[in-house]
């Protein structure tokens, strides 16, 4: 089974996070610690977290350890270190632990809307700032590979045995992955005040419901086009202004058809550069929107567009192909990042150069 697995063991990752002495850390927690700490350090916040909230998305919680120990939990005679993990099963555990690790005392919460989770975490962060509840937030998500998700997605027969080929006519499904991705969001005023380095402005965002099926997206991509159009509207921009779309692009038959049709609904025959970066990461579920928000911001700050790996043949139903080679020196002013989840939960974030 091909997966986007992070090679380091939990122990190695714990060492890297300088958290070797902390107990009962699940894999999503450690991955999240590393990514959120890197984001905070990059923003120069590590020393002072005052006024900073933390919103983390997560879908599997401590399932990895529950799978490992659930039979031990049930055995009343048995005792041991595994008992520490009982309290880590819920999705909120990793969020609380990461917040403690970073010494964040303000607003802390967890979002789980499946594969759109961390895009929604970023949206919630923006709203908290807009409403003056916090000055800034670290927002994104973290998830690890588990048997629960591997078996579940396998039962839906949407796992590819080969490397995933998003937006390719011969795509065979997705590869699951693991990871964490966080961005630091800040009010313009607070950023100016402390002379912060700014990658982009989160200029617009929207969340819509596809209202079609529990898991499958509608063939015409109604919810997806609606999310992109509403994000454009909230940013005061039009489709022409978009230079690049980081696609949800899971490489399942349904997602790519639905999202492809939605792209054509929004952009007509003027489709900008688009790519799915899931060929690099696999589908990291609750972390995907956060990781892809980081890619989108790097595209803006570094003028570089990341390619859609493994693409060879354009989809029959579509009139466009994704970007298959890296594009450097591109003028990237406005980027849409799509994240769609089970439940028909569709989100689009719009980042702009400042």
């Amino acid at each position: 089974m091909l997966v986007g697995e992070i090679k380091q063991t939990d122990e190695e990752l714990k060492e890297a996070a300088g958290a070797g002495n902390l107990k009962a850390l699940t894999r999503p927690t450690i991955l999240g610690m590393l990514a959120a700490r890197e984001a905070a350090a990059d923003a120069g916040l590590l020393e002072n977290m005052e006024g900073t909230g933390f919103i983390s998305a997560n879908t599997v919680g401590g399932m990895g350890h529950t799978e490992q120990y659930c039979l031990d939990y049930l055995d009343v005679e048995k005792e041991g270190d595994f008992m520490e993990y009982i309290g880590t099963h819920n999705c909120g555990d990793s969020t609380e632990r990461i917040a403690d690790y970073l010494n964040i005392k303000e607003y802390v919460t967890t979002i789980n809307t499946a594969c759109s989770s961390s895009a929604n975490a970023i949206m919630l962060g923006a709203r908290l700032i807009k409403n003056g509840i916090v000055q800034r937030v670290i927002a994104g998500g973290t998830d690890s590979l588990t048997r629960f998700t591997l078996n579940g997605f396998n039962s839906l027969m949407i796992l590819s045995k080969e490397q995933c080929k998003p937006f390719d006519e011969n795509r065979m499904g997705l590869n699951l992955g693991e990871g964490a991705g966080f961005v630091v969001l800040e009010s313009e005023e607070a950023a100016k005040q402390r002379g912060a380095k700014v990658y982009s402005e989160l200029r617009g965002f929207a969340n819509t419901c596809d209202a079609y099926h529990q898991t499958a997206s509608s063939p015409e991509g109604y919810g997806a086009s609606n999310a992109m159009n509403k994000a454009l509207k909230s940013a005061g921009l039009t489709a022409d202004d978009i230079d690049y779309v980081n696609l949800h692009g899971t490489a399942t038959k349904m997602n790519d058809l639905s999202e492809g049709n939605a792209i054509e609904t929004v952009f007509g025959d003027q489709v900008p550069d688009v790519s799915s970066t899931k060929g690099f990461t696999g589908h990291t579920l609750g972390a995907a929107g956060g990781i892809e928000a980081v890619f989108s911001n790097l595209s803006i700050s570094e003028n570089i567009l990341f390619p859609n790996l493994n693409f060879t043949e354009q989809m029959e139903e579509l009139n466009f192909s994704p970007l298959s080679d890296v594009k450097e020196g591109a003028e990237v002013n406005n980027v849409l990042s799509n994240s769609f989840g089970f439940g028909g939960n569709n989100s689009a974030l719009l980042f702009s150069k400042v």
Partner: protein
Amino acid sequence: MNNGLCISAHCRIKDNSAALNGETVFTLEEASFTQFIKALYRDQKFEYSKFFKMDNLSKLGFAAAEILLSNADDKIMGEEVGVVLANANASLDTDVKHQESIADAKNYFPSPSVFVYTLPNIVIGEICIKHKFTGENACLISKSFDSDQLFEYTMNLFNNGKVSSCLIGWVDCYLGEYDAALFFITRNNDKKSNFESERLKSIYQNCS
């Protein structure tokens, strides 16, 4: 303070009883959740065969939404309706069932139709599919019914023009225990049921 919004209907399902705006519409003594929700479906004539494919959480939320919206004005339904639900047990009730199907290596048949419900927001999707709601969704997890959280989140959606009406509330179930309290929030100047946190709380506490 009047914010121009009102609670135009509320529905409660718990303890084998369903009520609309505080008035009981159906009860069934001494029944399990499975028996009760099936009897409620028949009694209220939902006529939606997909109902029986849903997990318990979705059945509960779907039934409560059906009753809640039974008298709703068709004009305000649709595109700009948002859904904000909260609960304590997320999708644990179904997660357990999925886990059971993969616990025994000799009898290893994970069910796709169970797996698709191992997320707490699928109930929102089911309600949206039935009523063609395509506005913003959110699913919040908290220890208990938190009227402030629901109120503030919903006000923000209205204030930012994200929704024109909104179905909100609490839908929770785990191992046979269940509780649903839904509210339909619309733009209307109804002084008696002005949309405010205190009101949500008192309806939740008093209507059972």
